[in-house]
């Protein structure tokens, strides 16, 4: 593309392996800070296991809390990976190359994190493990397939294992690279992981084709996952939850927040690892254009949902919508959803000048995720507080310190895992970058030489 810098192969490899080979003080600071938050997280969970679910801010009415909200949020973030890598692979978009792995890895880790939340949220987690995993063939009764809570783990498990395998396959060539350049335990590790990959033509061919096939399959998994997460709520009869639009609405919202998270990650990688020549303005430009489309579609579904909650002017719906619109804190959250989630970022992304400004992109993407987190809270919690006209049971919800610690801990967990990953494996696919370089060409049109891409058909 336009600003591709043509480095020597050696140069590219050196640059992209830098995070693996060098450890900056910045890394150490990050490790220590995140580790601190993580230990608080572990302590909070231990506390909860010891004293019971009572330590959470739940009550008889608001029986699901901020943990579930956060679960939805992380599942949403996890939708970035496949969105980016699969769709861009299939459409052979050239700018996917530096982005894919970071996105897929974020998918992997945020999924793991997300799954911890509903698990510790159950009343008897040990029983949960005992009944549901492993699938219980000999001890009594199997899970009830009619329950959304059985579909949900199956979907997330499928997505998680699929992502792990996908990431692994695309990483084999990089393992081979690291194997040839490392010593000691790292060499042993990479040697096993690389499975003796030689880089013969056949292996490369399979590698490329498997990219397409796996992307296609992962795409169809990814649509199903957040749909099923939304059905956890929509299968119930609760007034505003029981909405037919929730599945696609959750999916597109997930893509909105996930792709924004990828932008955040790209900016951070560019700053932390000095990847300026590989994660370039044009990538932010392209992803920003994508985000405009995604964001607008999300807005459309959001409005559909709101309008059709009010559609029948049913008292039960109206009670909840009135709370969502006019009562603290939901009115504030609504503001966040509209302003941070859409009306600040999307108009900004319309301008090429801003799309190519890393700082702007970074902060707007952060805003989007604040907006999306509020959206999940705004969607989930009021449904329980004003379930039906039993004003006797209308009880406010206030998360307790333990809830909040656990929620913050999840963010630390994802960040920590990402850092560890970047210490062990290159966060940008080296072979993909090299391939991009090799497949880049030029065409002379008149006096101008237009950058071109080699296509084999």
């Amino acid at each position, binding site marked *: *593309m*336009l600003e591709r810098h043509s480095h020597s192969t050696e140069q590219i490899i050196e640059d992209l392996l830098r995070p693996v080979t060098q450890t900056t003080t910045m890394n150490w600071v990050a490790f220590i800070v995140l580790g601190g938050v993580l230990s608080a997280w572990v302590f909070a969970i231990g506390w909860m296991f010891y004293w019971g679910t009572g330590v959470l801010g739940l009550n008889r009415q608001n029986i699901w809390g901020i943990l579930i909200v956060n679960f939805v949020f992380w599942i949403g973030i996890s939708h970035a990976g496949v969105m980016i890598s699969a769709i861009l692979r*299939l*459409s052979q978009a*050239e700018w996917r190359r530096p982005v894919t792995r970071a996105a897929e890895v974020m998918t992997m880790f945020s999924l793991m994190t997300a799954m911890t939340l509903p698990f510790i949220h159950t009343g008897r987690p040990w029983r949960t493990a005992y009944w549901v995993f492993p699938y219980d063939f000999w001890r009594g009764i199997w899970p009830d397939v009619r329950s959304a809570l059985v579909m949900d783990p199956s979907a997330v498990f499928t997505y998680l294992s699929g992502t792990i395998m996908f990431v692994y396959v695309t990483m084999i060539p990089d393992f081979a690279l690291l194997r040839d350049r490392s010593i000691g335990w790292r060499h042993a590790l990479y040697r096993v992981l690389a499975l003796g990959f030689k880089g013969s033509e056949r292996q490369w*061919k399979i590698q*490329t*084709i498997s990219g*397409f*096939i796996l992307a296609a399959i992962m795409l*169809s998994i990814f*649509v199903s996952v957040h*749909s099923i997460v939304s*059905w956890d709520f*929509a*299968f119930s*009869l609760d007034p505003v939850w*029981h*909405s*037919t*639009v*929730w*599945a*696609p609405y959750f999916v597109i919202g997930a893509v909105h927040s996930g792709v924004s998270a990828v932008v955040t990650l790209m900016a951070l990688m560019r700053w932390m690892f000095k990847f300026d020549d590989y994660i370039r303005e044009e990538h932010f430009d392209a992803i920003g254009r994508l985000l405009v*489309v995604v964001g*607008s579609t999300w807005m*459309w*579904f959001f409005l*559909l*949902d709101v*309008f*059709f*909650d*009010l*559609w*029948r*002017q*049913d008292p039960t719906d109206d009670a909840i919508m009135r709370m969502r619109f006019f009562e603290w804190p939901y009115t504030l959250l609504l503001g966040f959803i509209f302003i941070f989630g859409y009306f600040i970022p999307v108009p900004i992304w319309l301008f090429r000048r801003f799309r190519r400004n890393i700082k702007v992109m970074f902060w707007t993407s952060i805003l989007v995720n604040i907006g999306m987190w509020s959206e999940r809270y705004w969607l989930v919690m009021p449904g329980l507080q004003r379930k039906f006209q039993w004003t006797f049971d209308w009880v406010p919800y206030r998360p307790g310190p333990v809830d909040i610690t656990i929620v913050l801990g999840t963010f630390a967990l994802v960040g920590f895992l990402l850092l560890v990953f970047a210490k062990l494996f290159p966060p940008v696919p080296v072979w993909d970058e090299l391939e991009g370089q090799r497949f880049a*060409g*030029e*065409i002379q*049109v008149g006096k101008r030489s*237009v*950058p*071109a*891409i*080699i*296509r*084999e*058909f």
Partner: protein
Amino acid sequence: MEVQEIEHRELPRLWELPPQRVIEDGLRRIRGSGTVYKVMLLISAVCAIVGIIAFIVGPISSGWNDRQAWTYVAITFGILMCTIGSAPCFSVCLRMVRGHWRRPVNRLAEIWAIGMIVPLILFFFLLGILPDTVGRSSFWFGWPVSPYLWDSVMMVALVICGYGFLYVGALPDMAIARDQIEGEGGGIFTRLSRGFRGTLYDWQIIDRAQGILGAFYVLLYVGSMTVIAGDFIEALVPGDNSAIFPAQYTIEGLEAGIAVTIFAMGIMRYLGGLDEYLEAEQFFAAAKLQLALGLLYFYTHWTEFIIWWYGRTPREVALLKIFYFEPYFWLFCVAFATMFLSPLFILVWTRVRMGIVGPWVTSGLVLVGIIIDNIRLYSASFSTPNIYLQELSTIPKAYVPGVTDILLAVGLLGGAVGVCLLGFKLVPYPSIWEVTAGIYLRVRRKYLKTEVVLIGKPN
């Protein structure tokens, strides 16, 4: 699945054509028209006359109060909105992803916009039978002059935007026609091409205008499909608050829009003698999108069904019955088979997608599907006696069309196609400037022992 198949097939001939040849092909239809074209035009003219007569005899004579008499007017309107209305969106989407193969296809998708005048007229008739939004469920909430004014604003804006989009895209070609065609034919183009001289400034204007108009067309299309689905279908079925439905209807529309484009591509290839322009490459890429939207069709219907199946309140059971199971069960089955199963099971095979016939046949099936599905939806929504209830207590019987209904639908559809056919006299196809630009941006080059294609990507 077997992706390597793509790499082994012969390279398309289109990109080796000399530019002069492209100009000739582009202007051929304007210079003179073949017998096939004339026959098709004649047929559609006859259809149009029959349709208009049936329209006057049927709905208009039966007056505004009898909603059911207007069922097939609404169905025709829906079919047109779903096909020719959404085809330009397909073109916009192709421009957005900047696929290189799109160049011969775009114009074919945009040219349908010419026919948009027909659904617009039908729409104004249909507004007459629409009750105002006071005291019934709608998303206007008693907004003044709703729904009439705001729906019309949407529709008019959509049609204007569509014409603008087509015109801007065709402007450079009209300039070419102006210079290449002598005689009175040239006269029109002199007026239409507005002294376009192809300066850099001109091209920038074209580019900008195409981007903006395209974006607005998509936004307006989604918006107007939403209000149509809301006001003409959901609001007329008591207790129906399925929020997915407008999206569902829009996606059906987009699927049919791609289908109608692929279908036209097939016709142009076999009857229009453009087999160098519309090759396996174009069909392959378009069929991919067709497949994707076929899957989306299933997805949106499934989400609606599963929620109602789990909720199972009396209200939802009634909705499941009227839309899916009781009166229109077989219509739904046909629509499901043609709009979901046929794309899935035909187009999932890469070999089929790379042929021409597979995508073409599928697109034909999808078009049948969209017709059937519109019949299902509007027959259901136009047959409910009292729309002010909270839920549907008794399921109305299926509406069986009379002779006038059939003639009306067939006639008006044929007329719309005829209007689009007339467009070919006015707009060069294939789009000369885009294909030529593509030829410049695409070269074959020897690479070591093999030969590869380089595709230029200016920013």
